């Protein structure tokens, strides 16, 4: 599904590479944690997969295709294959829960007649069907993150990237989010989950990749938190 071959990412003026000669292969349907301290390179790796960045050296492949030559409309099509959840959820504050989720369908041109069924179905999965008319500021942080997750999966992408999605949440709410992500993974979606929440990685074990100062220092197929 995702392959990185000798990938190095250097930012102009930075003393150290954000990512240094990374080689990894994530298979279709896998659930992979990406752990490491702040600045270890987790977000840089996510950005490479999203094609927000281009590697200084090496190649990133998604489903066997190199992302290097993607431009303009091709990048947009590439991103439609990826659901994305961030720590700060990036919900649109002037839109209701329903409209925030439907927004993902609108921007990719799904006909309006299909929205209601798909949005309500995914809101039911994250337990927010009854809050569809609420505005984001009327929700708790955990609920907002569930809306962000619903928006990420409503278009049924084959790949889900999560960048510190439980960073602002208490352990119980984090557990809820992980369970939702796991159920999405069980339906066949590949998941890459960047976090430094030890309890999450320990409790819900999956393959774990450890980054340190831009280098991939550990790839543990059985999981567990060890920095």
């Amino acid at each position, binding site marked *: 599904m995702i392959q990185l071959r000798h990938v190095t990412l250097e930012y102009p003026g930075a003393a150290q590479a954000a990512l240094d000669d990374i080689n990894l292969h994530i298979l279709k349907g896998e659930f992979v944690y990406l752990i490491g301290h702040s600045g270890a390179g987790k977000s840089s790796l996510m950005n490479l997969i*999203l094609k927000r960045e281009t590697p200084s050296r090496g190649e990133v492949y998604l489903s066997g295709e190199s992302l290097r030559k993607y*431009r*303009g*409309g091709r*990048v*947009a*099509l*590439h*991103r*439609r294959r*990826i659901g*994305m959840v961030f720590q700060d959820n*990036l919900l*649109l504050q002037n839109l209701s829960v329903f409209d925030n989720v439907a*927004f*993902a369908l*609108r*921007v*990719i*041109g799904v006909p309006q007649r299909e929205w209601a069924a798909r949005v309500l179905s995914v809101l039911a999965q994250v337990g927010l069907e009854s809050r569809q008319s609420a505005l984001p500021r009327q929700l708790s942080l955990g609920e907002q993150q569930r809306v962000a997750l619903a*928006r990420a999966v409503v*278009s049924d992408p084959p790949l889900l990237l999560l960048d510190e999605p439980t960073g602002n949440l208490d352990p119980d709410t984090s557990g809820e989010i992980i369970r939702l992500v796991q159920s999405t993974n069980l339906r066949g979606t590949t998941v890459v989950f960047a976090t430094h929440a030890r309890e999450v990685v320990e409790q819900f074990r999956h393959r774990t990749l450890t980054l340190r100062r831009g280098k991939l220092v550990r790839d543990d197929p059985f999981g567990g938190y060890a920095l």
Partner: protein
Amino acid sequence: MMYQIRQMWLALRGNFTAALATLTTMTLTLALLGAVSLLTLNLERTLSGLEKEVEVSAFLLESANDATLLKTVQALPQVASARIVTKGKALEQLGQDLPGILEPGSLEENPLPDSLRLTLKNPRDVQVVAAQLKALVGVESVEYGEGYVDQALSTLESVRFLGYGLVLLLLLNSLFNILSTVRVGMFARRVEIEVMRLLGARRGFIRAPYVLEGIVLGLLSSLITAALLYPAYFALTGQLRTLLPSLPLLEDRRVVLELLVGLVGLGVLVGGLGSWFAANRYLRELE
């Protein structure tokens, strides 16, 4: 499309001060542009009137064969019309032009020569034709108001050139106004734009509300301009007609209306193109 229109309206409302500033500046620019265009049109009329009046006179020797010379001159490609003015006719005309000074029969002998009077298809050929006339056998001298005609033509040419230069600068000014308004508007909604991009929205989808905003601003400002300029122009020409009745003013309402319709089209074009460029550039910078 309804979504894009709603987003355009939200962009206008959310960025109201900048939109109002653009609307005002663009209206002023288009008003100036319209005024310069009307002035240029009036200058064109004056210029073409002056050009039509350019006449070349070739004074003939006593021995000249007038009919042959007339045929030769009429065959020149630059000549629009040619006629012979006999010495008698010229004296008669002089008497009419200087009444009280030159009375009929007051001269013992007519001192004036026969002459050829020519008008040209293009007044800028005047010097070439004059040189050709001078070379003809039987032509004593040639006059075409050299100095005066050349200077008047070149002055009016300069005025026309300056007018178009000013119009171009004003258009660029409008374009830059639109560019900055759209940029401010997009920056204010950068989070939403970033979400759209991450969700896989194409550039055209993100750009559409801003292009619509530019078109609406262009349309509004040009309509305001037309509504102000039309009555103001005819009020001014009415006053000028009373003060300077000989001035060849443009008073054809259809021509003025056509110009204002063109101005509205230009406003929409500048608004649409400016916002398209601004939105595209902003999105390219994010990539």
